[in-house]
């Protein structure tokens, strides 16, 4: 951008040092620092609960640090609010997008102008069409200015939000897991835009759990662990994958190839399952101890199909038989009675009870086991739940705290525990088990799934992460456009599966 203030190379645009922040008794940040250089992509890494989100909140003025300092172009600054940080050109783009779905593209681009306008007429505060188009060009987004945002794809919305930031003379763009729900093509497009913005002088702070992406995109890396910066602005080119992982979790993890047990007798029979009246009818047999993978790209229908098996989605027809118990598909309560556990993909929206305690979140599907005469026995509840929480290493281990006070990764553990604690658990349907989860937790969750299978539970694992499906499943169905493709056995190559998923036959 023409009016970009060009900082001298080597001098950080934004520098945070010695940042500490506590929420009540929880110390989110102990001593964190971050130096963001202009025209570079800076990856901020760390496990769930390491303090990434808190550090970002401090940077963008959403919260103030207890101690430590912020410097903008070498000058000390204090951001009292998001507005202050905004005015300084620090623009956050969050996972949950902050657009107005029913307003037009142009109105969304004008949101900030509207917010500070003194005019009674909304029209005069709108950004001029030429200006709006110029901003959209910056992110290579070609959409109709009058189209409602709800008509845009998720990827387009993200770009629109970045365009809005660009319009605010963005100097530092903060992206929190921007690729979590994007298709590979959308991700590529986003990366192109990021590189372009970077070349024009903006600094990018990029938070992701996907190390492949980090290595492909980032110039510098800062790693947080337990609220402290353990690696300060290291050059990506000089770091090995091993070193990065060690920095994040504090020890080495060998890439474990999961040993799977032989499946046993057929435990679950899915018959005549059909999502829409005219769509494909699915029959499946799942053996006890078998992990059945549903692999699909984003939007392929793999997740919907798996959810239908657990009864968590409306279906046109079908039954799921577990032993002698037959649950009509689409009835979650009956499915639960038959011993079918379910871990939804959007854990917070579809799984979390924010105000209930961690214990109460886990026990949600097994209330009958510790209730007599309609009364809940809290001590028995705690006895049943506690072993699961310690097995998945809830952190901090405070089962009585409300769920909304835990970090995202720990909230996911609660929902997983809810599925695992069902007794007798015959079938566990788990969607996107490690979306938005760090490496340590990913390992733990995978292990928990394999152990469940080892104990004789049939598992349906639906994921858009091919490596995950490949390393964990006995059998894999590829799902494309809502249709179940041919099953492939364990040991099939990634390229073959990818061929099935994209519809391109592999060589």
């Amino acid at each position, binding site marked *: 951008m023409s009016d970009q203030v060009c900082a001298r190379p080597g001098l950080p645009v934004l520098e945070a040092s010695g940042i500490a922040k506590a929420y009540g008794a929880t110390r989110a940040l102990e001593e964190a620092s971050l130096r963001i250089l202009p025209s570079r992509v800076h990856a901020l890494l760390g496990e769930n609960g390491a303090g990434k989100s808190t550090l970002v909140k401090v940077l963008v003025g959403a919260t103030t640090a207890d101690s430590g300092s912020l410097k903008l172009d070498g000058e000390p600054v204090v951001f009292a609010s998001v507005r202050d940080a905004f005015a300084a050109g620090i623009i956050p783009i969050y996972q949950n997008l902050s657009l107005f779905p029913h307003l037009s593209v142009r109105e969304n681009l004008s949101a900030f102008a509207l917010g500070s306008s003194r005019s009674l007429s909304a029209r005069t505060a709108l950004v001029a069409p030429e200006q709006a188009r110029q901003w959209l060009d910056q992110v290579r987004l070609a959409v109709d200015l009058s189209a409602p945002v709800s008509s845009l794809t998720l990827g387009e919305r993200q770009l629109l939000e970045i365009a809005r930031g660009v319009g605010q003379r963005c100097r530092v763009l903060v992206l929190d897991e921007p690729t979590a729900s994007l298709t590979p093509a959308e991700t590529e497009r986003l990366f192109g835009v990021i590189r372009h913005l970077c070349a024009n002088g903006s600094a990018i702070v990029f938070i992701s759990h996907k190390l492949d992406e980090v290595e492909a995109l980032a110039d510098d890396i800062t790693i947080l662990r337990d609220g402290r910066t353990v690696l300060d602005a290291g050059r990506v080119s000089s770091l090995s994958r091993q070193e990065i992982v060690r920095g994040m979790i504090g020890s080495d993890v060998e890439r474990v190839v999961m040993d799977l047990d032989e499946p046993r007798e057929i435990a679950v029979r899915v018959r005549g399952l059909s999502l829409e009246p005219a769509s494909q009818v699915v029959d499946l047999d799942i053996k006890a101890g078998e992990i059945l993978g549903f692999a699909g790209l984003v939007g392929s229908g793999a997740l919907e199909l798996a959810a239908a098996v657990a009864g968590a989605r409306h279906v046109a027809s079908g039954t799921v038989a577990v032993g002698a118990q037959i649950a009509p598909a689409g009835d979650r309560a009956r499915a639960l009675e038959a011993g079918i556990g379910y871990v939804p993909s959007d854990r917070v929206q579809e799984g979390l009870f924010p105000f*209930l305690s961690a214990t109460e979140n886990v026990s949600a599907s097994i*209330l009958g086991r510790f209730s007599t005469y309609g009364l809940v026995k809290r001590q028995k509840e705690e006895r049943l739940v506690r072993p699961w929480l310690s097995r998945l290493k809830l952190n901090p281990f405070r089962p009585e705290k*409300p769920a909304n006070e835990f970090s995202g990764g720990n909230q996911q553990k609660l929902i997983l525990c809810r599925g695992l604690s069902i007794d007798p658990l015959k079938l566990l349907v788990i969607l996107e088990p490690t979306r938005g989860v760090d490496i340590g937790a990913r390992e733990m969750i995978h292990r928990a799934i394999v152990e469940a299978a080892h104990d004789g539970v049939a598992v349906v694992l639906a994921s858009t992460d091919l490596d995950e499906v490949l390393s964990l499943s006995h059998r894999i169905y590829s799902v494309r456009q809502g249709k179940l493709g041919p099953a492939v056995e364990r040991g099939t190559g990634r390229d073959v599966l990818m061929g099935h998923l994209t519809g391109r036959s592999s060589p």
Partner: protein
Amino acid sequence: MSSVSAPRPSGLGRILDMVPFSFWMAILFFALFAMTVERFATTGNLFNIARIAAILGIVTCGQAIVLVLGGIEFSFASSVALSSVISVVLMPHIGVVPAFLAGMGTCLAIGLINATLIARFELPAFLVTLGTLMAGHGLAQVIAGGLPLDAPASEAFTWPARGEIAGVPVPIVAALLAVGTLHVLLAHSLIGRYWYMTGGNIEAARTSGIKVRTVLFWGYVAAAGFCAAAAVILTSRVASGHPELWPTLSFETIAACAIGGIPLAGGQGRTAQVVCGVLIIAMMQNAECLSKAMGARGTSPWLVAQAGKHGRTSGSRGSRIP
């Protein structure tokens, strides 16, 4: 529901944790009124406050359940009005107790209608209960012919409002029972847990295998149950069947919950908050009436009763109210 399981280090800290913010507000209001309003802090008046608080409190228990469920209930006001009219109309024909039972049945019937429309047909609680609020008032007007009906005075009829059990006025006993019931429901019962889940995140409740419709249904029916108990006491107290008995009742219960600290968004709320919210509202109303120096000229017999006079239809019976 911050509470539950883990042992806390100190007993006092744990108790302080359980005390809602509104408790301190209630104390503050009490001190304020005691200093500024004449005759506020007399024993007689405190009993009067307790009586106001008793009836409002019983209904607010019902409102709290609905708020925990993430809904809202407007139809309490017409429920009690219709209930009082039906009780008084039937009383000469079927006797006092059956007439009161019929009144309670009226409240439950309105509750069942609400519950069915909200749980089974998934209509917004806001619209449904606003509808039954208006319909109930309309029906009460039609039955009563637009005028308040005098109730034939009898010992049995006045007992719910003016009787005593072991020296404690019946409404206060009833309110204590209601509060105890609400506490057991919310903090210890299975259905209460389901209410918190459904109100906190209905989608998560579904994926956890909870029958959300059943949970919602019984929540609205339970709320109507509290309302039914209050309707009997209220009818007895004003000694009339009045189609405009206490038109602002629903709003006062919502206000009491809100002041007590229960968010209207659902999934949260404790019994202690209900109690504190109700006491604050009752003190404010009482103080206002006292400072108007008995000059209240409300059309509602309830307002008149609060000011310390007995209802114009209550005949020659004496009153304990100062």
